[in-house]
């Protein structure tokens, strides 16, 4: 289902579309991290803090004036992830994509949108930092 979350982001044609997709993607990362926590073993600290960063990123996106006000949740199906490592890889790669797109969006547009995108990009970077594979 990586393609689905990433696909939403890729399909975004404008800033409102990107923000809308970013909201769903952060929510998806949050759900993936929470689902992985119980069997995470020594990765639990990384998942617990990444989940917090994902919720922060989602809230940051909501602060952007260009974010559509009337959207409805579009829950994405949970990806078939067998291990905590796989869940971490998945969430980290999605977070990196989010960071790239939001950083780009933060470079233009209205100041309030820029600030919201920059905040959300920082949250995505934090998730990637926590969950990226070693090395």
């Amino acid at each position, binding site marked *: 289902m990586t393609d689905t979350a990433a696909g939403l982001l890729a399909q975004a044609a404008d800033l409102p579309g990107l923000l809308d997709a970013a*909201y769903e993607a952060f929510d998806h990362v*949050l759900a993936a991290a*929470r689902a992985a*926590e119980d069997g995470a*073993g*020594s*990765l*639990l*600290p*990384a998942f*617990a*803090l990444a*989940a*917090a960063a994902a*919720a*922060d990123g*989602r*809230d*940051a996106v*909501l*602060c952007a004036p260009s*974010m559509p*006000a*009337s*959207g*409805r*949740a579009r829950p994405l199906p949970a990806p078939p992830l067998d291990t905590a490592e796989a869940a*971490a890889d998945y969430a980290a790669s999605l977070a990196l994509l989010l960071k790239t797109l939001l950083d780009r969006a933060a470079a233009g547009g209205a100041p309030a949108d820029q600030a919201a995108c920059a*905040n959300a990009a920082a949250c995505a970077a934090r998730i990637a*930092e*926590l*969950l*990226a*594979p*070693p*090395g």
Partner: protein
Amino acid sequence: MTGNATFGDFWARSAASLIQGQGQPDAADRPAEAAAVAAALRRLLTVITRYLDDEVRWLNPEGLGPWSRALVQSRIAVQHAVAILAECPAAGREPPGGEGATARDLSDAAGTLQLARDLLQTHFTAGPRGSRTDRSDWAPVIASPQVSRALLGVLAAQARAAAARVSALLLPDGIADPPGRAALRRANPWLNAFDSAVRSAHFLDPVPDADLHLLEAVPVNAVAGRQAPTGAEQTAELAAGLISVAERVQRGARELAGRARWDPGMNAASMRQTAGACVVTSDSCEVILRSLADRAGELGQPELRDFLGQVAARAAAARRSWLAAARGWDQMATDAPGRMTPFAADALGMALWTGRLAYADPSWTPARGPSQQLRQPGSLAPDEAGLGTVIAAVHYASAAVMRLGEAGEQQIRVAAAAGRLYVPTRSLPEDYDVPRRMAKAPQSRVDTVLQAYSLAAEASVTSTLAVAAAAEVTGAPSRVLSAAARAAGNTRGGPLPQGLVMRLLMQQPDMQLIARANAGYGLRGLTASWLPGRDALPGPPLPARAADRGTGLEPQM
């Protein structure tokens, strides 16, 4: 324990000033120095008067117990002595050639005793008409009857030592008393009266050594600056760093609830990070406790191994509860998303220090790093003393997490009442028609988060009490936390965890462990009734700090 100066540091110096010169008659002290000695004694008694005035609030006019009577008698005695010394015409004038040894020692004792009082006062804010407000968790401990009695005993011991020094000047020397010495001769019986009043109270209602140790342990109310681990720390340094940051967190948590109505720092980002930090800290505490359990087994203590395993299970339960609390913030926000506050950063700092103690990699972080290998039990605690050092650090961390649970629950309650909690509109069911991105949080969602925090707080209390029991059993220096909680009447942090301790201990009954834990919790005798057919336990003394030091209050029969 924390590296901060304590009341005991100053008191010990003050007492040493008076005791070191005892039995060494100094000819230069005698007639010419009497006035200077009278002035120095008056300074000391003035300081003691300030202490006694601080203590007046625990006088109970409706039922004067022995210590209340002793306080009244002490104040009268000291007032008389001060009045007599004030009449001395030469008092306050330095004699030609400077002060002699007795005057100098009395002055030094007065100075350090005043510093000790200043240290106690850092825990309070002065209010109108002499009232005072608590500024720290130690404030109710200082104001407790136990510590107040111990303090009165300390002051009486100072007065007794001062009287002994003065007596040496009053040896008959065949000449008429000069004014200063006449005043000393008249004042000295009042010092002895002060001492006698306190001795009588101690005889009727003895001050336990533990209360004196608690008074000695009161630290200055100051928090060390933020410090991040460098990666070069040895285990003891990591333990000290963890204690320092945990104290900082505890102190910060104390202020949180009162500000939740308006403080921008009460925001979703900080609440999430703090809850996440509690998950990580509890998780690492469990890891550490399991390693310590293994180490106890290696050191030939199978009962302690099993006991610590039980304590670790409580830390795991706290971690699970904190995970649920953290998840409560997944679909909850605040009126402004805000940024992570310095306080939340401290909580994350505590998680980092705890992890550094738990894991072998000196550069460990919560991130998915190259090495999540656990620290070897032998490197965590090379010997039995090392067990206590690490348990003390875990004790402080657990207590900080416990405080965060209580504070978090209150913060959410206050923020909800102030209408500060929101949810993403997208997270609401379809039938909610809110044309905005955020909506006021439905009460059902607030209740869910509150319940999760309440459970996290309870699990953290249970975990902390279990670690406290381990601290008692191993003689860890953090036992002072339990004693302070008991003295302050903290109903969540300290009192009588009978059911828990008994359950923990009786799963692997070991009579010596039980007796030592009981002694620490004041449960002596309880076990006999809990265990049918067993006699009362012998109750060996806890490994006591300064165990062979007297209180200075022992009645002289």
